[in-house]
């Protein structure tokens, strides 16, 4: 190793940086970092496998173990279940965004990025873009798993589109929520617990797996009005070709509201963390 002779080109020989607009770089840099996050996936396949196996277990568990004991009225339980599974999968999957951000902070990678002449926003947007595609992939796997266990949607093209759009929007919104959690918690472990702990009651005390009318009255009030129920109802109605009613647009409003609140919050926290 003593043969190392690092001959560093002086500044005149420095590779030339391209000149483009700020918006161009905000997008280009985000794509570079999104590519980075996606490249990580095959290097740590256990993460994706775990993220996929967990919801598949839920599908099997509810389809074959609990399902028989749950009465959901007119539809088959597996048809009822899948809407809830999609929403749960997307919400849980988005926690990855916060975990990844916390890991980057811990390892000093955020410092490196911030010392580069790149668009700082890309640190957030790049990761969220990657997590969006990752989440979309997992939902696709869930869909196939659903078909195998007897899920039979009755959606027309418009309804498919609405269901997909809602799930993607939810994934996007939840990624910003998770980013906020990650920036507050700062460590991977803390983000993991802080990210999941409130998701469990929120997804289970909802219409995701059972009809809320089977819950005690006081709980029903909460379950009927919380966003997970509304979003699950909308996705389910779209997929089964049923009228979605007010839940149809309320679900989009809820996701939009999350975006409106958590994008500025996460950006503000990120700026505070990176340039105090």
């Amino acid at each position, binding site marked *: *190793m*003593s*043969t*190392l*002779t*690092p*001959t*560093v*080109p*002086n*500044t005149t*020989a*420095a*590779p*030339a*940086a*391209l000149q*483009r607009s700020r918006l161009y*770089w905000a997008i*280009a*840099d985000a794509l*570079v*970092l999104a*590519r*980075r996050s996606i*490249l*990580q996936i095959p*290097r*740590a396949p256990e993460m994706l496998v775990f993220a996929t196996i967990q919801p598949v277990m839920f599908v099997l568990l509810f389809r074959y173990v609990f399902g028989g004991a749950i009465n959901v009225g007119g539809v088959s339980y597996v048809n009822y279940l899948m809407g809830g599974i999609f929403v749960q999968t997307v919400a849980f999957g988005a926690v990855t965004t916060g975990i990844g951000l916390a890991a980057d*902070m*811990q*390892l*000093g*990678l*955020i*410092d*490196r*990025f*911030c*010392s*580069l*002449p*790149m668009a700082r926003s890309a640190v957030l947007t790049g990761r969220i873009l990657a997590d969006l595609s990752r989440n979309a992939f997992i939902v696709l796997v869930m869909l196939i798993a659903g078909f195998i266990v007897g899920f039979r949607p009755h959606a027309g093209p418009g309804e498919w589109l609405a269901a997909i759009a809602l799930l993607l929007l939810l994934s996007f919104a939840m990624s910003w929520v998770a980013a906020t959690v990650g920036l507050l918690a*700062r*460590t991977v472990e803390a983000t993991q617990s802080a990210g999941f702990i409130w998701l469990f009651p929120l997804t289970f005390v909802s219409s995701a797996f059972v009809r809320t009318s089977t819950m005690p009255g006081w709980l029903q009030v909460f379950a009927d009005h919380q966003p997970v129920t509304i979003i699950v109802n909308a996705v389910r109605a779209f997929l089964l070709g049923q009228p979605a009613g007010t839940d149809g647009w309320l679900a989009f409003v809820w996701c939009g509201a999350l975006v409106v609140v958590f994008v500025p919050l996460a950006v503000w926290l990120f700026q505070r*963390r*990176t*340039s*105090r």
Partner: protein
Amino acid sequence: MTHGKPAILAEGLEKTFGETRALQGLDLVAQEGTVLGVLGPNGAGKTTAVRILATLLRPDAGRAEVAGSDVVRQASDVRARIGLAGQYAAVDEYLTGRENLEMVGRLYHLSARSARQRAAELLEQFDLSDAASRPVKTYSGGMRRRLDLAACLVAAPPVLFLDEPTTGLDPHSRLTMWEIIGGLVAAGTTVLLTTQYLDEADHLADRIAVVDHGRVIAEGTSQELKARVGGERLVVTVARGEDTRAAVRALAPITGDEIHVDETRGQVSAPVIHGARMLADAVRTLDTAGVELDDLSLRRPTLDDVFLTLTGHAADVSTDTDQAPSRDLAGTTTR
């Protein structure tokens, strides 16, 4: 190269984190093509200073220019002309060495082609070509640090900030890093290097700023700093531990009162002038006083002595106190 605009200039930098005053009027200057060593114990403010100069933190007061641009008002100009290697290798564990460097190249806004070329060049230069296609998590500590350093050289920046570049490395990897840094400076790069290793500053730095409690307490070349301690030191090791006091009494008339006693080693040391002549006097007086000697020597001062003289406490290089104070306060990482 001592004329012209300095490549790094900091004046009266102040930064407070809550109750802790991390920087209290720090001044630094590094001329183009030189190495400025910033030397100080943990929590002295070294990392905070680097983070301000690398545009990661805003100072509460004072100003700083790097490569001719203001670190606050022209932060993006500064970022295009610096490279930063932090205390730990900030590279993506899951990506390969090549992917890491290409990513950084793209983020420096190089074209895909030049990013690829530059990555290949650097991997070659840093002896990482064989490992280029392996994920970084398979790399050794030394290889990671080399990759980290390569990453901050992607745009061949004229100014480099290396925050404790060899902390935690084995001696061999440390020497390799020294060699690399030496090569960079020879090629005209200006380097600001923080370290808690005195020999590292001695070996690499053209000028050294000794920092304690967020302020520069001494600045100069290694020779100048050593001269401030008063040239050579007479070091007496007594055979019986209880004799150190007797030794001090005996030596005081010839060396003056600036005598340092290390009880645990049974050592007494003092700065001396005309060391060789004094050696004979010292032997005589100690013999008269009945102090039995294990060793008696003249030692040229080290930066340890400089630190001791300037701060009144030895440079603490133990790692068990960790970087916690400075890193914690400095921002994003932990709390």
